[in-house]
């Protein structure tokens, strides 16, 4: 008998198989679940508000976030994420050194959930993560993220879900306050060349999986594994590209994401042939669509 993930092969226990075991070589990978069997590090580092001490939180044997340890550490108080550890093997951790800017994962002793899975809440005021090391130059990027926006009012009307910026050009995924549409940009800060955009608005308080193939010759946007738009464009970045989750890379005060984040994976390669497989893996875990 053979079971695919956690089962028995003959008399041997089969090891954990994560998304990055099946679809390897991510440039950066952050999640509330374990993504790679060989990854032995933690998921997040949490600061509790009662005394501002911190503790690393890892995974259970099944690859879920260790919420038992998390709730024990944050008993009766709030918990904020200082570090979202990179599981790709590139040690590109996403960190936030300012307490007021750290996303929240425990509220009054209870783990924040989206669709039954742990999630971290970005406040829409100042919360964001910056990657601890920059990216090398690239001309193909594939990005997958699982989010649930809470609202699109106020500063969050222009929410940036993420931004990769090389000092001149950037790949950012955002909501346009004028149209309400989600789209990517591969432009200068003030774009004359606009983006590839979804054809429909994404409602707040709905969890969704966004997949963006920002390639050398086109931008392809998928919403819950359904293609929304495809535009001829060039997405290139030079050596030293920085990455930010939850805000524009220049930390502009009116571009904050307000809502919950659960997973963010970047490949510096074209993952079009693996797209459906990656999306299915993510959806199987989170039950999004």
């Amino acid at each position, binding site marked *: 008998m053979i079971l695919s993930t956690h089962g028995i092969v003959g008399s041997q226990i089969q090891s954990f198989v994560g998304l990055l075991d099946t679809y390897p070589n991510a440039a950066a990978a952050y999640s509330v679940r374990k993504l790679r069997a060989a990854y032995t590090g933690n998921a997040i580092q949490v600061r509790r508000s009662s005394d*501002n*001490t911190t503790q690393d939180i890892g995974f259970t044997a099944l690859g879920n976030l260790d919420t038992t340890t998390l709730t024990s550490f944050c008993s009766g108080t709030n918990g904020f994420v*200082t570090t979202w550890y990179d599981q790709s093997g590139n040690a590109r951790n996403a960190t936030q050194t300012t307490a*007021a800017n750290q996303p929240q994962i425990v509220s009054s002793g209870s783990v924040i959930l989206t669709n039954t899975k742990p999630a971290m809440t970005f406040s829409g005021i100042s919360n964001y993560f910056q990657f601890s090391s920059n990216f090398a130059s690239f001309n193909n990027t594939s990005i997958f993220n699982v989010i649930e926006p809470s609202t699109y009012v106020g500063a969050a009307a222009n929410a940036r879900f993420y931004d990769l910026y090389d000092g001149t050009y950037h790949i950012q995924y955002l909501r*346009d306050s004028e149209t309400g549409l989600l789209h990517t940009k591969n432009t200068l*800060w003030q774009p004359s060349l606009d983006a590839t955009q979804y054809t429909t608005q994404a409602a707040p308080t709905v969890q969704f999986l966004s997949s963006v193939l920002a390639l050398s010759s086109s931008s392809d946007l998928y919403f819950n594994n359904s293609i929304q738009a495809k535009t001829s464009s060039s997405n290139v970045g030079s050596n030293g590209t920085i990455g930010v989750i939850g805000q524009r890379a220049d930390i502009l*005060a*009116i*571009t904050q994401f307000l809502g919950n984040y659960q997973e963010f994976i970047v490949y510096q390669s074209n993952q079009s042939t693996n797209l459906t497989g990656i999306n299915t893996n993510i959806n199987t875990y989170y039950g999004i669509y």
Partner: protein
Amino acid sequence: MAYINGYQYITEQEAINARELCDSYYGIPVAPDDITQNWVDYQFAELNTPQFWYIVFDESLFPVLGTPIDFEVITPPFPI
């Protein structure tokens, strides 16, 4: 243009001093090598004339910095 509720400073040193007040009040950093190095951070209103520095209001800042004020920060025109 963005309307900000917070604290406005004419010089960067004033903003640094305000940040240090908050760090001291909340005991940040707990240890020198902690990831968390500040309780709050300030931002630069680069496009305003005159330029200034500011801290966005958070309830935790009230006991340290007092009552916030409303002010405008010039941002790049949309789409951004």
